[in-house]
């Protein structure tokens, strides 16, 4: 199974999401604040569950954050959460081989025969989430300026 994880700056478009919500971005600030509070909490719990080798709890959280990211149209974050969610469905830890990406500029990573660990996925989720968070903070800061 090929798994490719993109590590790039956030491609999340607040304006596109606002258009689908049929609301101006300014009116979505509370929704984004709620999202950040919830995702911060879930990510913290996910790391704790991982540290405690609680795969059942990890699966529950991965399922939830996958859903939240999907609803918020955060596609890259959703995809990574889904990879973790799908891996956690397998009872025994899974070994996934991925191939070297052909374009190093787009941030596609991987190496032949490497093991994709839960901790690396959680780290990637955190990175992608932080990029989205930065995008949100910057957008609303500029909006208020």
């Amino acid at each position: 199974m090929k798994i490719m994880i993109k590590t790039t700056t956030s491609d999340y478009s607040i304006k596109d999401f606002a258009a689908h919500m049929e609301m101006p971005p300014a009116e979505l600030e509370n929704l984004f604040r709620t999202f950040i509070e919830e995702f911060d909490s879930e990510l913290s719990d996910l790391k704790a569950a991982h540290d405690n080798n609680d795969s059942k709890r990890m699966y529950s959280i991965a399922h939830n954050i996958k859903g939240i990211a999907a609803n918020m149209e955060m596609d890259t974050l959703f995809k990574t959460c889904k990879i973790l969610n799908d891996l956690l469905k397998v009872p025994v830890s899974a070994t996934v081989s991925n191939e070297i990406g052909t374009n190093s500029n787009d941030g596609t990573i991987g190496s032949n025969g490497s093991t994709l660990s839960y901790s690396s996925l959680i780290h990637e989720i955190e990175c992608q989430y932080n990029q989205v968070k930065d995008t949100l903070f910057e957008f609303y800061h500029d909006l208020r300026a």
Partner: protein
Amino acid sequence: MDLKRILIVEDSPTVVEQMRLFLRNENCKVTHAGSEFGMMQMIEEYGKVVDLVIMDVNLKNENGLDLVEKLRTNDKYATLPVIVVTEHAQVDFIMRAKTLNVNDYIRKPIAKESFVDRVMKVLIP
């Protein structure tokens, strides 16, 4: 349309907030609960009239269809309108939802237009 009271049973605050925003122009009062206990508190103890329950199937500690079944086995709520929200709409899920007389189901991720349409169709038959 008279003011309609909607109870959302969902344990993700983000999803609840999104649904509230979807319904903000629809003359609805939206309350929410994250569990069976909270749901029954809203429906029973506070004496609130609930016109529709929007139930997430995949609650953290409970199965939303189990909660619907509990409502349906209580004479007071046997005909209470319920829409379930689910990521998957597999055959066994649909069969069980039908036997529980669920009014409709909505797939996640939720799209505004179809969500509002389905809610309004149940509220104003």
